């Protein structure tokens, strides 16, 4: 299998879907001429032309709102919002428009649109307005699917499925993973939305981790192996959430850590922890432990950002702090 960076995998997914389905188009700030601020749409303007790779003014509400309108009327837009933080300007278009149409219109309509956005800027010291992990915000919207790109393999397969999905999907890419390399099949493939992946098998503790923290968890599992056998699960999609795979693992190991870069309060990790406790209560030997960001914005200064954003050490500490009966 060829090696690809996550950046390449995403570009390939976009390219393949633009090629496959003429109702798709890309839209966003600097996605055409400049090839995107992270270079992910580079070259696509040349292949598909300005009707299908569209530069916009700095107008997040219009990018996402127009996508909702286009999706409702026969197109399959793929919008890019430069940072998840800026989704705030477009959140209304998702929560009051795109996410509601199918239901409000009696089930007849569909809104096949994808919004790609970037989170996890803490390691880049981009400070509080460019570093938030907001997937929890969109998990809070019924009618909206939430997908996380955590591995190179996932990034390509999940993005293609997101684009083909008939519901609005918010697809989160982690800034720290763009240059990460991984093997992916040479031929085109998709991954189902709503299916978690067991990235590493283990018997003593389950770690459910997303994005950068998934890779930290895998490293920690390696370090601890021989002493503690850690199973690492990648949920891949948060809405829908694959409760079954999570519960199965929790029942096997009896101890669970959930790690995600969002705020803990009302965040994805807390939600997942709650579901696991509900589904596997009688098999658990300890309450599910949650690793995430405390009730704090992401600060700029490197030592402060490091203190706030969880890393491998936080996962290891959470694992070793779990009671072992």
């Amino acid at each position: 299998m060829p090696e690809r960076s996550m950046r390449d995998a995403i570009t390939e997914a976009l390219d393949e879907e633009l090629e496959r389905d003429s109702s798709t188009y890309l839209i966003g700030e600097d996605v055409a001429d400049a090839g995107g601020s992270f270079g992910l749409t580079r070259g696509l303007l040349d292949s598909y032309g300005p009707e299908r790779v569209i530069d916009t003014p700095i107008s997040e509400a219009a990018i996402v709102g127009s996508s909702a309108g286009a999706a409702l009327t026969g197109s399959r837009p793929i919008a890019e919002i430069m940072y998840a933080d800026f989704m705030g300007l477009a959140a209304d278009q998702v929560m009051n428009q795109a996410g509601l149409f199918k239901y409000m219109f009696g089930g007849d309509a569909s809104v096949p649109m994808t919004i790609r956005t970037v989170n996890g800027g803490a390691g880049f010291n981009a400070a509080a307005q460019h570093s938030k992990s907001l997937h929890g915000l969109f998990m809070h919207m019924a009618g909206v699917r939430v997908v996380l790109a955590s591995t190179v393999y996932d990034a390509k397969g999940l993005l293609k499925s997101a684009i083909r999905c008939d519901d609005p999907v918010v697809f989160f890419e982690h800034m720290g993973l763009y240059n990460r390399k991984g093997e992916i099949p040479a031929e085109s493939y998709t991954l189902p939305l709503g299916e978690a992946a067991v990235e590493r098998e283990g018997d003593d503790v389950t770690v459910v981790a997303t994005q950068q923290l998934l890779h930290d968890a895998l490293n920690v599992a390696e370090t601890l192996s021989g002493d503690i056998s850690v199973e690492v699960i990648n949920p891949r999609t948060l809405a829908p959430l694959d409760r079954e795979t999570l519960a199965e693992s929790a029942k096997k190991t009896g101890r669970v850590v959930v790690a995600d870069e969002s705020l803990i309060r009302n965040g994805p990790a807390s939600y997942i922890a709650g579901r696991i406790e509900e589904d596997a209560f009688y098999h658990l030997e300890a309450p599910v432990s949650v690793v995430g960001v405390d009730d704090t914005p992401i600060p700029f200064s490197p030592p402060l950002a490091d203190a706030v954003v969880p890393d491998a050490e936080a996962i290891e500490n959470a694992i070793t702090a779990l009671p072992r009966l």
Partner: protein
Amino acid sequence: MPEAVEEYPELLAEQLKEMILIREFETQVSSLFEANELPGFVHLYIGQEAVGVGACSAIDDEDYITSTHRGHGHAIAKGLDPDRMMAELFGKETGYCGGKSGSMHIADVDKGMLGANGIVGAGPTLAVGAGLSIRQRQSDAVCLSFFGEGAMAEGSVHEAMNLAGVLDLPVVFICENNQYGEMTPAANQHHVDGFATRGETYGMPTEMVDGMVVQDVYEATAEAVERARSGDGPSLLVCETYRYHGHYEGDPTRYRTDEELEQWQARDPIESLETTLLDAGTVDEDNVEAMREGATDRIDEAVEFARESTFPAEETAFEGVYTEEL
């Protein structure tokens, strides 16, 4: 221009000095960034100094400004201390925001600087709020709101202009058209020529200003501030200017030509004011030399201060999220 030299020569000399200081700050920031001494990313104001300095020299300490992600020049023009600004850029505890903000969010509310801002188009609505509180306190202060031409496409900017007009608030909207929003030329982002119509649409006095000429910016702002103070509501100034550097430091600027840059640099706001003042005899070569040396020394000092300051203690990351007492 000639009238200005006769009417307010000292102010012009002050403005020259301040523009030189801002350019020196930015030039040193550029080198520090290249040398990997600064975390995060920075957006520089080099080329646009006449706008920040011209506008801010038309207001007083008790007045407010809102700024953008490109805010260092506005901050210095509003009187912020280069030491604390530089320390903030380094992420040090002595920085304006204790290392929490970095380049993009430097603020000093006590000094009327309501923050640089990482969210494009966020400043104008904040400025409307400042206008409301000014009125509630029956103060005669004003708020200048700086934003880029790219921000002109954000709904919040339109909502702000309309609301300020409806409520007759003491806000001066200052659009700095530096010709590009990130990598895209203004012409590809807006379906109007220039932006005068944007102000007219919202029923406010609007002026197109040469943003490379500090006197022009100063005079237009002074007039708009006068209107605002006397209860005649908001104005829009559209200042045509140019950023010499890329959108951010490290931007290869493939989207523009060297010739275009050179054309704008030929009208450099600092050099042209310097020539005017030298010709008029307001300053001599020695004065200008002293301004340059003074600026270099001042910013060297700021860098020294920033380098020698310590990083904030980890626990401060969790402080200041809420007020201490309920």
